[in-house]
């Protein structure tokens, strides 16, 4: 990389990548609107990108299926995607980068040294801890070691997707590899969780751009998720919500209610318990989202959603008792037993009383 007198800015990088000034300003406008910021912020973003030294992003892959990357590169705004990718791919992403092998590893080293304490570490997937981490080997070493190493000098960490945020399917019971979400391995850095399986592309680019443009992490909720995208449940903004409030529910996948597009609550929709932006941002350039396509939300951005019973039940199985039973099965059994007990006890009480009365009469 050529050494310039002043530190390289994002704007420099973009121009070098062939992004025109006009596209650059458009990108700033798009970013402002994606982050729900007013038009006055377009200038702020542009200024920041022109003057601030760029923050490099290192993107690591652990135990994962790459669906987060797949989602990311399909961002709805091609411009945002190109720009963000051109900023990212310069550094390190073992799936997207051109370099491979030793050359790639050298680049990781290089960025870590040069931007010590300033780079952002984005992690897709998680480290399995069992057998000293041998279930996921990257570059000849357990992934967990590489994660700890790269996290050491990072300014902040983005945990992409449910894998990095919550563990996801590889951490589902019985979790043989002991796959562990990032925040349980790295405890001394700010971690931004972007759960979802995968997260929505626009949410991903939105988070990255916010961090790069404003040089700070977005406002997070108590669980470490950006409030602007995870502040509400699917159910709060679902377009089928009026049917929920009315009491109009689908009960079978082929009933009239299903054809009419009624609420999917009774067939197990997890929208009421799931925090994500699907019902507002939607998927595939805002074309649709699962509920709009007729299937309930499966709660993919919630912790341990694989272990929380059927996707098609409203009252889901409880795993607390080690047996497969939902609250109603447990409750009815208990209430039934108590009812029988009361009836028997009442019968004995009455019989005893009669006996007693007879005795006292005699």
């Amino acid at each position, binding site marked *: 990389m050529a050494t310039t007198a002043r530190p390289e800015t994002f704007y420099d990088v973009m121009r070098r990548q062939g992004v025109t000034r006009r596209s650059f300003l458009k990108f700033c406008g798009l970013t402002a609107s994606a982050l729900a910021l007013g038009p006055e912020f377009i200038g702020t973003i542009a200024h920041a990108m022109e003057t601030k030294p760029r923050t490099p992003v290192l993107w690591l892959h652990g135990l994962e299926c790459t669906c987060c990357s797949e989602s990311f590169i399909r961002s709805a705004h091609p411009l945002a995607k190109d720009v963000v990718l051109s900023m990212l791919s310069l550094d390190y992403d073992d799936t997207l980068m051109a370099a491979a092998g030793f050359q790639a590893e050298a680049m990781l080293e290089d960025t870590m040294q040069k931007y010590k304490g300033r780079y952002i570490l984005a992690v897709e997937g998680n480290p399995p801890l069992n057998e000293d981490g041998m279930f996921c080997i990257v570059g000849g070493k357990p992934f967990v070691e590489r994660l700890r190493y790269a996290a050491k000098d990072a300014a902040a960490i983005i945990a992409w997707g449910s894998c990095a945020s919550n563990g996801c399917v590889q951490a589902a019971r019985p979790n043989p590899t002991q796959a562990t979400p990032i925040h349980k391995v790295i405890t001394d850095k700010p971690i931004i969780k972007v759960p979802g399986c995968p997260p929505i592309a626009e949410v991903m680019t939105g988070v990255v751009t916010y961090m790069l443009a404003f040089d700070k992490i977005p406002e997070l909720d108590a669980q470490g998720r950006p409030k602007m995208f995870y502040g509400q449940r699917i159910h709060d903004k679902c377009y089928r919500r009026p049917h929920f409030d009315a009491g109009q529910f689908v009960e079978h996948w082929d009933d009239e209610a299903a054809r009419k597009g009624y609420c999917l609550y009774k067939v197990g929709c997890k929208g009421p318990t799931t925090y994500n932006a699907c019902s507002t941002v939607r998927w595939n350039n805002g074309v649709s989202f699962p509920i709009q396509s007729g299937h309930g939300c499966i709660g993919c951005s919630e*912790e341990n959603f694989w272990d929380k019973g059927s996707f098609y039940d409203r009252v889901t199985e409880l795993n607390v008792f080690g047996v497969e039973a939902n609250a109603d099965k447990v409750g009815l059994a208990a209430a039934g037993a108590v009812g029988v007990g009361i009836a028997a006890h009442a019968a004995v009480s009455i019989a005893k009383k009669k006996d007693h009365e007879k005795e006292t009469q005699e």
Partner: protein
Amino acid sequence: MASIETLSQPIYVYEKPVRLWHWINALAIVALAVTGFLIAWPPVVTSGEASDHYLMGYIRFVHFSSGYVLAVGLVGRAYWALVGNRYARELFAPRVHDAYWWQALLHEVRWYLFLVEEPRKHAGHNPLAGLAMFLFYVLGSVFMIVTGFALYGEGLGSGSWAANAFGWVLPALGGSQQVHSLHHLGMWYLVVFTLIHVYVAVREQHLSRQSVTTTMIDGWRVWKDDRP
């Protein structure tokens, strides 16, 4: 301790606010259990436009308003424990540090197992009833209120008072879905209590040596015999 004295004169046990609270609370619990069950297994409207109906909305409205009644009622009842008579305190403080109390509890258990001929007299709750009320009703309702308002805060939205005060419950208990399930299970905990409670109240009215059901109506504990 009251129960060792010779009890013959009627005693004013449950003051008016306690009685009023008891029956309002009983109604609220029944309304909460019915509407809560319907929230989990809602009835279905099949006809017309969504805007013509608001069934689920009304069910949830009744649930949430009864929830407020339960919560405000419990706070009021706790306040009365501070300012009311000695019997008003029993609900919140079973006398577990008192050896006589344990002995009386054992006697009550034996009475229920038909092992003794007659129960002892108790001006306030008998120890078994007192313990059950604390374990089932007090702890159960507090759990329902805490989880209930945590779920309620989700609907009100982040930044609302309920989300601020109880939002922490959701991640602590394993997320919104898990809290729904536990809240649902809590309903059965209270249903089991209510079944036993009503049976026992009616049974004791007839078989014990003192008034019971009527005490929660007019406040007076009346004795059926003069023996200690």
